């Protein structure tokens, strides 16, 4: 009995943190998503009104579409690049540790600074991109990337696509657990490096790939700094994301009920995607 009390005592700080910052907000978001509330007074029950408002708001629909683009681009462009670089680094070419350290560097720099950095990469007159295009005689392709509705979303996605460090390390960690004998046997059979990677390494890192996809979904649903700093979600909401939409409803419009309804939809999208990844992994394990 005494020990049970002691166990409870030791659990208390952790339980408090999780209850105050995850459980209560989650319950609040579910309850208050059905209300209209401007921050003072009593929230007024509006049923599904917020959801109807959201789904008839073009900005919200664009936010959902763009967040989906973040997920798709993360899964089908960013992740394969992470795998590619991991496969190269895993072969331990000269200086591989330096490459690993450099490629991981963006993960310890704030999203704010990186977004600012890429704002200037795409800058119309100072940017490396337009400068580089001019240098190779393709000046006609230069444009105002961040203020063009056709390119703003792609520009905000670019840093995320090319910073492969985190996924690379994730895959390297799992590659290092693969027994060396597999590769030696394959070499004796005359399999090329590419063949070894394709038939041995990639199937054996499927768990890490599943994990990476869960991170991709999480990151896409949290994507905020790049659109916020590079484009403010513009022009004409063409690069807005769900996080930025919630931020705007809350900070600019003070529509708290609406912001919570948008938050709830964000969470539901996350649940569906994560469940999908687990389901796919289950099938692959069979």
């Amino acid at each position, binding site marked *: 009995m005494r*020990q049970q009390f*002691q*166990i409870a005592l*030791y*659990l208390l*700080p*952790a339980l408090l*943190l*999780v209850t*105050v*910052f*995850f459980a*209560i*907000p989650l319950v609040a*978001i579910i309850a208050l998503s059905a209300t209209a509330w401007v921050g003072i007074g009593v929230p007024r029950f509006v049923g599904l009104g917020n959801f109807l408002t959201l789904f008839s708001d073009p900005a919200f629909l664009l936010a959902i579409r763009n967040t989906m683009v973040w997920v798709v681009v993360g899964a089908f462009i960013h992740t394969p690049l992470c795998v*590619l670089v991991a496969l*190269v680094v895993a*072969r331990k070419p000269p200086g591989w540790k330096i*490459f690993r350290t*450099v490629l*991981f560097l963006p*993960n*310890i*720099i*704030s999203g*704010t600074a990186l977004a*600012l*950095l890429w704002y*200037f990469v795409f800058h119309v*007159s*100072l*940017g*490396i991109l337009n400068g580089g295009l001019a240098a190779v005689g393709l000046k006609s392709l230069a444009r105002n990337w961040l203020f063009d509705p056709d390119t703003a979303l792609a520009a905000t996605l670019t840093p995320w696509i*090319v*910073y492969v460090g*985190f996924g690379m*390390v*994730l895959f390297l*960690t799992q590659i290092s657990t693969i027994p060396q004998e597999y590769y030696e046997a394959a070499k004796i059979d005359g399999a090329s490096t590419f063949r070894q990677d394709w038939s041995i390494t990639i199937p054996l890192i499927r768990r*890490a790939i599943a*994990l990476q996809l869960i*991170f991709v979904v999480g990151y896409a*649903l*949290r994507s*905020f*700094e790049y659109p916020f*700093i590079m484009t403010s979600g513009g022009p004409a909401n063409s690069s807005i994301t*769900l*996080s930025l939409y*919630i*931020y705007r409803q*809350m*900070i600019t419009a003070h529509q*708290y009920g609406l*912001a*919570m309804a948008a*938050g709830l939809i*964000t*969470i539901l999208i*996350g649940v569906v995607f994560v469940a999908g990844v687990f389901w796919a992994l289950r099938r692959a394990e069979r």
Partner: protein
Amino acid sequence: MSVAAHIFRWVVLTVFTAITLVPLLWLLLSAFKTNTELFASPFGLPAHWSFNNFVNAWNAHPLYLYMRNSLGAAALSAAIIIVASLMASYALLHQFRLNRTTFGYLMFGILLPVNALMTPIFFIVVFLNLYNSVVGLSLVYAGLFFPLGFLVIKTYMDTTPEAILEAARLDGAGFHDIFFRIIVPLTAPGAVTAGIFLFITAFNELLFASILTTDTDAQTMQVGVRYFLTTYAANYPLAFAATVIGIAPTVVVYILLSDRIVEAMTAGSIK
């Protein structure tokens, strides 16, 4: 390995290294230029290596306050998470009825996109009377990043040999004695790993820092750096210098401890 494969490998490494480093070097070089120089030759070397921009940036906005708040919030939140995680992981080493349920409850937040919770968390902080304070921000970080730190620390603590605990119990050591004399020292390396990672994560956070603070007394580096773009739009090099100052702490820590940090930031996830 064929020549083509060899060339391909080096192309991949070179391209990704260049994409990572070139913009950063551009930022660093530009932070030394004057505004006129920047627009005249955006890709050249600065004419003079002067630290004027850094000095001016430091004086233009209270960067030292932003830095103090960022370091404070990062350190305090990491400390809270480490203490709470050590205690909870120790509690979960014991058998009791709701053991697995408790673990699940403590971890469920790791799968939530936390930005979706920004609205209720804002009101909780206001309700606790902690709006616009470094302590409030630290508590929010401690809550949001708790599952990440907890996972690393629990995984590490779970490798403690049961025999050591048995021996201590036979010697008559009590519940608290075992925690302070055996568990905490043995789990210290795991706690340090988690601490470094949590510190960097909290230091770099922008969204919650910007919705939970309004005064320079509580605002962080990430929030402050943005002012240089909005209020000094005409003077980019000043904004660059402020950004360089803002990323310096984590980059310095990374240069000193890169292997450990790479391990720390992926350790919890792979297990």
